[in-house]
């Protein structure tokens, strides 16, 4: 049997069950080592298959499952924060920084569908952030109540709300 990545004879055979489907990969020694397949600690078949998944969905890898430098360079979308391009994503199947997820949001969405149980996060949220979001929400509520109070010419209530807003935004 031939290696899935080059023409050499395959000697490492890997099987994983992913979402009920048996995925098999055959590799030669060199490719196995290169891809860290011989190290069960750091290896996920998903990484190998990622190229395939994005390939199937089109657009991202230009249909090239192995994630080689395909597509047209130059026209590639770029992350404004770190300069990572869509081209780089095709090549390494990793992102450059946290902002890339905003920059490539459209491209990411179809990719995640084949990968995760859901499309939006459920679970732990950083505590600082939670406080921040809560504050944000609270401010929005207060501001709309303030508007209503002013519109209703209920100045006493408006003053109270304004005070509360001031406690949330230290000046």
């Amino acid at each position, binding site marked *: 049997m031939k290696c899935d990545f080059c023409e050499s004879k395959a000697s490492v055979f890997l099987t994983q*069950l992913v979402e009920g489907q048996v995925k098999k990969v055959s590799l030669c020694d060199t490719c196995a080592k290169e891809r860290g397949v011989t190290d069960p600690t*750091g290896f996920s078949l998903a990484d190998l298959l*990622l190229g395939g998944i994005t390939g199937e969905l089109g657009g991202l890898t230009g249909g090239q499952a192995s994630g080689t430098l395909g597509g047209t360079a130059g026209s590639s979308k770029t992350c404004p924060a770190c300069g990572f391009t869509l081209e780089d994503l095709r090549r390494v*199947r990793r992102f450059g920084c946290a902002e890339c*997820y*905003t920059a490539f949001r459209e491209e990411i969405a179809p990719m995640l569908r084949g990968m995760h*149980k*859901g499309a939006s996060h459920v*679970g732990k949220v950083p505590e600082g952030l939670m406080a921040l979001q809560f504050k944000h929400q609270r401010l929005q509520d207060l501001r709309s109540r303030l508007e209503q109070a002013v519109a209703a010419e209920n100045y006493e209530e408006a003053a109270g709300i304004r005070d509360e807003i001031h406690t949330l935004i230290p000046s």
Partner: protein
Amino acid sequence: MMRFSTLIKNPADWMTGGQAEHGAVLTSRIRLARNLRRHPFPGWAKREQRALALELMRPSVEALTVMKDAFSQELGDLSSVQKQVLVERHLVSREHAARGEGSAAIIERRQSFSFMLNEEDHLRMQAIRPGLQLSSAYAALTALDTELEATLEFAFDPTLGYLTTCPTNLGTGLRASVMLHLPGLVLSDQIGQVLQAVGKIGLAVRGLYGEGTESLGHLYQISNQSSLGESEETIIRRLERVIGQVAQHEQNAREKLVEDDPEMVADKIGRAYGVLRHAHIIDSKEALNHLSLLRLGGMLGFFPADTIILCDTLLMDIQPAHLQLHSARKLSPEERDAIRAQIVRTRLQNLKSSDTSTPSADGPPSSPEPANPTDES
């Protein structure tokens, strides 16, 4: 600061402090991936940017109460054998070990927690526990994560959760995995069925397979594949439930094997013992497979209960880098096979010879169930 030799001298807590809750469950491991906001991910960062991120994270991790007097080293300062030993102990990933300057490993004294700084993600933290203890491992690790949040700002998106270098880790950044020793299911040819069922519910089964269906040392790792869309608790609860069932299947398979074909079981275990006890050249694959059967022998009561700890310690000690550390020099593969055989022979010297006439599927009473060092996490 703890020295490398001090760290490695003793087996990890999770290698010897196991519970006998489920004979088949060796270790539980929880990993959380986190990245810093406004810092490029390590693989894309320039050298100075990586150094900056490391400078930022290292004091925070070292300041964790649990990491008092921890082992903390930049990978560039470790020899390749030392790094490989850490990989064999599952304290750092192989990918991490391949890195040098700008990456660091911070490992708790008892090897229960380890932090990889500037791995694929800025921070990968891990907790390992013996037996089936995913929930408590997660509870311990998430507390450390929360503690770190006070000083480090992690990249987080309300929709995508914790942002990771590889999209397969998005959301919770959680990988929960359990290492199982399933010789009963392998010997009774039920392993394929069981693993297929596990795969159907979206869990990943790993292990290096030969062309057949047996994995090395009958060791299998089951872990969650999806990290986005379900809470940490949901992921862990499902995994624990499934593992409990697999462990029960394994137990049933062992009982049935002993009942149906005691000769076959005794023969396999006895032969494994014979080879281990008398071989002068043994490669790691052969050694692992025989040690697996000897371990089964320990659990079935063919051998004294401490055989299990003996096997688990050996599984770690016969790995290539551990052998080189032991010999204090670089060894050719041939030399390794000879030294491996010698170590195994010596350790088995005092093991009471196999009397396989009255096996019992219940195993010896109150045998401690140590964690298995070959946890292929």
